[in-house]
């Protein structure tokens, strides 16, 4: 079974390499679909169990919230149909078809989000964003394609300097971009008109889990009365409900290899933080433009 785990992880990594622009959750779901096709289980329950095991395997490789939420939603989506055929292979076929449908839907999700959000970027706007987010990049691409003129401030986002990657990508689009220190967020906020960030996970309360530094940015933008927008696909909705920063489970806070190797987690620095819903103005998802209190409504529809 360890061997199988390794094979899964290899496939996952291969998918990520093939298309670096793809979200890690989408790659995970592709892997799960492939796993389903190859699985030789005899019962539906066994199938579900092995899918859960596969999701755990993948979270061991990439510990982001999106992988775990994407896996759970995939499982729910495919089993949400009537599986009353006598024949197991027929059931499996149905599940596979649903899986393909799910994959297709979520591949379109980034485009849908971009279509919704780019109208909120007015001509001459100054935007602040945090770290490297492919969804935000897609939104800014769409806005640039609509011939809007705007400039972007990106935070460096230590410890992995992902912000510089974002700045590179934006320069290729001919968008004027400035990289600022994480500590300079308060300083720069009076110059910007709006703040757009991505999310790794959207929680039940309507808050988000994102790269560390997002919470600070949200608090500052609230103090300056600037709108704080979040762009996220719907497979990132997760059934967590953190009450504060400490309440976020450890398995999401640190990178996967850190969790495996390090003994004392309190000496490690967390990679993500939690932004409560009171600081968020709007969320742009492929289900529509939502207020933070509507997220719970959508979650109930997705999960119940």
């Amino acid at each position, binding site marked *: 079974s360890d061997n199988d785990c390794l094979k899964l992880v290899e496939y996952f990594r291969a998918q990520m390499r093939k298309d670096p622009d793809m979200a890690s959750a989408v790659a995970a779901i592709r892997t799960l679909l492939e796993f389903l096709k190859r699985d030789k289980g005899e019962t539906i329950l066994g199938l579900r169990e092995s899918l859960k095991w596969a999701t755990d395997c993948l979270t061991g490789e990439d510990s982001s919230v999106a992988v775990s939420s994407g896996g759970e939603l995939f499982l729910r989506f495919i089993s949400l149909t009537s599986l009353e055929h006598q024949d197991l292979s027929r059931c499996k076929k149905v599940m596979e078809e649903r899986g393909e449908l799910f994959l297709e839907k979520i591949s379109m999700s980034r485009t849908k989000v971009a279509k919704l959000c780019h109208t909120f970027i007015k001509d001459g706007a100054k935007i602040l964003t945090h770290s490297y987010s492919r969804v935000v990049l897609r939104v800014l691409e769409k806005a640039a394609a609509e011939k809007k003129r705007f400039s972007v401030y990106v935070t460096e986002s230590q410890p992995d300097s992902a912000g510089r990657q974002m700045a590179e990508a934006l320069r290729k689009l001919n968008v004027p971009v400035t990289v600022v220190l994480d500590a300079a967020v308060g300083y720069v906020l009076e110059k910007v008109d709006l703040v757009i960030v991505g999310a790794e996970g959207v929680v*039940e*309360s*309507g808050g988000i889990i994102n790269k560390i530094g997002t919470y600070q940015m949200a608090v500052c933008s609230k103090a300056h009365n600037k709108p704080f927008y979040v762009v996220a696909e719907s497979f990132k909705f997760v*059934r967590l*409900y953190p*009450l*504060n920063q400490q*309440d976020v489970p450890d398995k999401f806070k640190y990178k996967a290899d850190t969790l495996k190797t390090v003994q004392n987690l309190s000496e490690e620095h967390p990679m993500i933080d939690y932004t409560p*819903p009171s600081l968020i103005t709007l969320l742009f998802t492929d289900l529509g433009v939502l207020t933070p*209190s509507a997220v*719970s*409504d959508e979650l*109930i529809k997705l999960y*119940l």
Partner: protein
Amino acid sequence: MADAGEPEGPERKDDIVKAKQEGKELTKEEKQRLRKEKKQQKKSKEKKDDKPSRDSEKEKKPASAASPAPQTPTQPPAQKAPSAAPAPVPVPASETPSAADKPAKSKAELKAERRARQEAERASKGKKGDVGPQAAPGKPKAPPSELQPVVKRLPEHVQVDNPEVLKKLAKKLERQQTPEYNAATKVKIPLRSDYGYKVSLFSHLHQYSRKAPLTQQLGIPSTVIHPAIVRLGLQYSQGIVAGSNARSVALLHAFKQVIRDYTTPPNEELSRDLVNRLKPYISFLNQCRPLSASMGNAIKYIKKEISNIPSQCKEEEAKRKLLNCIDCYINEKIVLAAKAIAKYSIEKISDGDVILVYGCSSLVNHILCEAFEKNRKFRVIVVDSRPRLEGREALRRLVQKGINCTYVLISAVSYILPEVSKVFLGAHALLANGYVMSRVGTSQIALVAKAFNVPVLVCCETYKFCERVQTDSFVSNELDDPDDLIVTRTGTTQLEHWQEVPSLGLLNLVYDVTPPDFVDLVITDLGMIPCTSVPVVLRVKNVDQ
């Protein structure tokens, strides 16, 4: 309509009278015909009024809003005799036959009644239909809008300072009768009178004294209200049974006893008659102590179950089914819900937590005991307030389990809050706009906790969710006996003669509402939801049913 029915009426009536006299069981057809005739007679009487069908609707709307049960006067044959149908303003010839039947009433009285009706009609125009089940044979009524959110305006029984409304309420209570074919035994539910001076902001609410329970005004033997219900009413009004869950469970058990002792009268169907039998009991209980939201939901459920009994069902089987339904309801909505909520809450309790609780909520106590059994290390701070001092009961239960507890009064809350990591509160009801209605003092604690950035968690079962909307604690509340405030810890009673001081009023509030901004999380048996998602749960529940 009445006229169309007349020609056949008399013949069929003869048949039925004959059948009755022969002691035969009426067939279903005959029963229906009998009912139709009664309806037609009532209609023909009321048609002769100023306002024809609107009258029945009007009488229904305020009455239906007043109690969870819709008022549908299925008139027993007693009303065929000259009875309380009010005589109207001089209207052409058709008046004369009815005028002959009606009892003599003075013109002034009639005018006053008509004015009261007009007021009620104006008030009820804004209301949408009752969401409650239409148990009895329906007179034309606004269809219950169950799919759209129902906005209920203030029910008229909570307008105690409006004398016309009071008069109407008294009349309604008089008119509530157990449908017996001989009009000899009529239930008279006495009207409880208010006690003492009421603070002007709350003068629209009732304020009763515990020393004058409603049962003193009932005659002995009170054969018309079931003794289990009388006992329950007394337990409510004296505060022996207190707490939202306890009251609902006691109510359901009393109803089980009523159902066990019930026998269907010869010409009626169980599904209709039993509901009518329950109505005076519910009014009686309401007079003893205003019904809570959870009790209202339980009553709605029972009425729905009763009216869904198929008519060909035998009485024994129907009773068994009903008893079973009630047991299931208690089990699912209260017992199992508590287990589910405990399971979710334990995830939120971590080792080293300091948890603050207020008053005595059976659910919160259950959660803390469960968490303690699962070996979580935490300690509890119990906050208490006068005059009920319910926190002592909670303290007793927790200390018995072995949980480390501290006890403070509510005046010390801002002193101990810096030590607290979480606040767990119980709820009496969750309103449709996300407000939490709970024991008075809860919103104070939530406010202070918010100021100290301490997360506030409310635990509430879904059967306590109600479709009412309220933004402040004034519009609908309960006033307890003001004499409770007189006695202090040292036993001195300086306020003993408060009634003699004209400028002094004592206010003993029971509930208050907490806005959703102060509540971080609501734990229900469906899972953990934010406070603003209560209408979503209500919608999902309505769709399920």
